[in-house]
């Protein structure tokens, strides 16, 4: 018998927010069911209800037509449901094997003692099956984010689940690892496992899914066989309107050099990198995950002390190890790739989150001029069309896309000369993406130099005035608009253009 899940009439509210309203969702074993929608549409909430993280307010969950109660994550596991959550959910201090078996450890027969050897053996067997070289005894805190994602996936695989939910599993994966993931998925399908797949990337969805369900503002607006629909139709259902496509205005780069980097090297990260950013120019660094580009960008900002080579910024040489305070004072800005780790100040208001870097400029008689801060903050919120009920709103209650906009809006100050953006649209829906592209372009139009790190080739092509491809810490080629060659870029990133 093929297993089957039905979620019927599901409703859920957080305070006054109606996150889900009368949602009906089904899937069957052996198929991939894609779930899509803009940021905050309710995808994760629906899945968290399935996973026992949240409790539904209304509705019913049935497995094989039998109503079930899922009161805690452990219950979901008992019903054969495994989850890969949007945020990594591993325990850094436990080993790979310890994480995979957490909560369901194998014991020596008849004793309370864990059989670590057996658990490690089983994990290694799984890893071998997919040709992965990971040591089951390594603590997870030592792994990079791609490896961690793989551990999550292996954990789901090894859980004997018939249904695996994957909430944006590719957001931390390199191209290679993505291919591997799709390979997993295809094998799992063949083994009769059902997969619910959440992603903002249409090509992925149209590549592996059989069904697609589109959510908007907590309701289902479309549910169809992939074969019977189109990318355009899906996007249109997500936004509820035609997406006004972002079109990059192209311009002459005539300004002075803001940043020039010469022979920058840091062993194991990047090696002999030379690049320059002009006023008003958007320079994009791209490559595969692990290519060294984020480390390079952080070193320029002052977050990395141990590098060789020279960083010249506005005719000054910046010394290594100076810390970001100098950069900020000199008109540099940075949007990090990990909002929650070092992008936001959770208990503070939207106002405090935006105003922090430029407080010194609002001083009047040594004290902060509240009215001045308010007007700057109001303008920043307006310019980025951030959705917040008020500047007093605590930032942690905002959706991911809006948090990301706040991370941008702090830098809109007129003294900004150089903005460094790491994966600016990671986990951002198509709509917010267009907003963010527009903000970037506005800034460049004002003469701000912009250095972007992006792993998404389409974004790279759309945004860049100049593109640098990187492979294993070295820059491979430089491309200037309009001479972009997507295939060659991809080849560069994969190391094909690399000699030695």
């Amino acid at each position, binding site marked *: 018998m093929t297993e089957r899940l039905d979620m019927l009439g599901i409703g859920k509210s*957080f*305070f*006054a*927010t109606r*996150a889900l309203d009368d949602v009906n969702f089904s899937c069957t074993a052996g198929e991939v069911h894609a779930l899509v929608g*803009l*940021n*905050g*549409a*309710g995808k994760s909430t629906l899945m968290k209800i399935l996973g026992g993280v949240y409790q539904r307010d209304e509705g019913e969950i049935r497995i094989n037509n039998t109503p079930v109660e899922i009161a805690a994550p452990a219950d979901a596991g008992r019903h054969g449901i495994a989850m890969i959550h949007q945020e990594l959910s591993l325990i850094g201090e436990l080993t790979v094997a310890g994480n995979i078996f957490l909560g369901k450890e194998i014991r020596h027969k008849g004793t309370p003692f864990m059989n670590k050897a057996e658990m490690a053996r089983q994990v290694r067997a799984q890893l071998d099956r997919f040709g992965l070289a990971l040591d089951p005894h390594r603590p997870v805190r030592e792994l990079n984010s791609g490896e961690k994602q793989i551990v999550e996936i292996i954990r789901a695989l090894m859980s004997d689940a018939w249904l695996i939910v994957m909430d944006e599993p590719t957001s931390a994966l390199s191209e290679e690892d993505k291919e591997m993931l799709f390979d997993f998925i295809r094998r799992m399908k063949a083994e009769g496992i059902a997969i619910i797949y959440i992603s903002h990337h249409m090509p992925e969805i149209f590549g592996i899914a059989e069904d697609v369900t589109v959510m*908007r*503002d907590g309701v289902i607006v479309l549910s169809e066989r992939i074969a019977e629909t189109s990318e355009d139709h899906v996007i249109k259902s997500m*936004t*509820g*309107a035609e997406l006004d496509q972002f079109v990059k205005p192209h311009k002459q780069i005539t300004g002075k050099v803001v940043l020039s980097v010469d022979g920058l090297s840091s062993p194991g990260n990047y090696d002999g990198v030379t690049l320059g950013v002009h006023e008003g120019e958007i320079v994009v660094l791209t490559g595969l995950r692990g290519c060294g580009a984020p480390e390079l960008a952080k070193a320029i900002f002052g*977050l990395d002390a141990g590098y060789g080579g020279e960083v010249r910024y506005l005719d000054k040489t910046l010394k290594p190890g100076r*810390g*970001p*305070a*100098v*950069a*900020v*004072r000199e008109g540099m800005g*940075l949007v*990090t790739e990990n909002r929650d*780790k*070092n*992008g*936001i*100040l*959770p*208990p*503070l208001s939207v106002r*405090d989150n935006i*105003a*922090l*870097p430029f*407080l*010194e400029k609002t*001083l009047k008689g*040594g*004290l*902060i001029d*509240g009215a001045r801060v308010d007007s700057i903050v109001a303008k920043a919120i307006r310019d980025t*069309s951030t*959705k917040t*009920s*008020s500047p*007093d*709103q*605590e930032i942690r*209650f*905002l*959706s991911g*896309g*809006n948090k990301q906009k706040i991370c941008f809006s*702090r830098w809109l100050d007129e003294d900004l000369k150089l903005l460094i953006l790491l994966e600016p649209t990671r986990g951002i*829906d198509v*709509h*917010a993406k267009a907003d963010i592209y527009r903000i970037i372009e506005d800034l460049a139009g004002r003469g701000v130099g912009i250095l972007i790190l992006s792993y998404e080739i389409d974004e790279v092509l759309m945004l860049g005035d100049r593109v640098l491809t990187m492979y294993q810490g070295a820059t491979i080629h430089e491309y200037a608009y309009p001479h972009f060659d997507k295939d060659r870029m991809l080849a560069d990133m994969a190391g094909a253009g690399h000699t030695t």
Partner: protein
Amino acid sequence: MTTTTAAAPPRPRKAMDSLTQRYLVLIGLIVIASVGFSIANDNFYSLANLGILLRSIAVLFLVSMGMTFIMLTGGIDLSVGSNVAFSGGVGVITLTTTGSAPLGFAAAILAGMAIGAVNGVFIGRLRLSAFMVSLATFALARGLALVIYDANSINVSNTTFLWLGGQSWGSIPVVIPFVALVFVALSLVLYRSTFGRDVYAAGSNINTAFVLGRRPERTLVWVYVLSGALAGLSAIITVGRVSSGQPWTGLYLEFDAITAVILGGTSLFGGRGRLLGTILGVLLYGIIINGLVLTGTNPYLQSLIKGLILLGVVLLDTLVQRRQAQ
């Protein structure tokens, strides 16, 4: 709700809301406690007794305000009580050797700041656990106090030095308006200076503060130095109050300060809280301790009551908030 933008964020539960609520609870309790004690003892509302009450908690006010800054950064300072003894010792020794009250004041405050700086450097720069570091300086400062006093008290008769802690205008001790002044100054620092915003930022997410160029490691150092300076001020007040320097002053003062700050609604995890809450927390705490003393309550029963009140206020607050959330 427009269809072209992301779903609106959930209804705001503003920081001020939950904090204001806490303040109302505190004010309510302060009123209840006052009425209760004045029924139990008609002396409670005499002006003299209010003066005694306020003077007796003046030091707690100062130390708790410093502790508020520290707890806003997510830290803790167990060394303040010992520091009051230590910096008082340095001040008194300086006074007795030089005969100059201003030098004595300066020495006390600088000594307090020195212990604060040790805390600050270990906690802010070396990123060591605040609990552990200040536990070490808790012992260290008390030990140094004993060493410099040679475990004996030193009599002080310099009237200038004693003025702040000892003088009264009628029933109003001088120290009360002084504490009010410090409160206003610290409020300006906390709410209207960049340093104040940095305190909140460091406690909210130190990584973000660092990336935004705010030098949180420096902020932390200064926060502990500030707490040390307030301990130095408290030492001066204490010396004035007891007209002598004492090696054992400030014993377990840190526990009282932490309790008062927690009562005032400041989060232990940083980034959330206000000075006003601390003032209310100290008041409630002070009234209860004073009232229990007046009614001659068994000291063990006092401890029990203290514990129950701390738990009760926090519990009440949680339940009220939970009720509201539904």
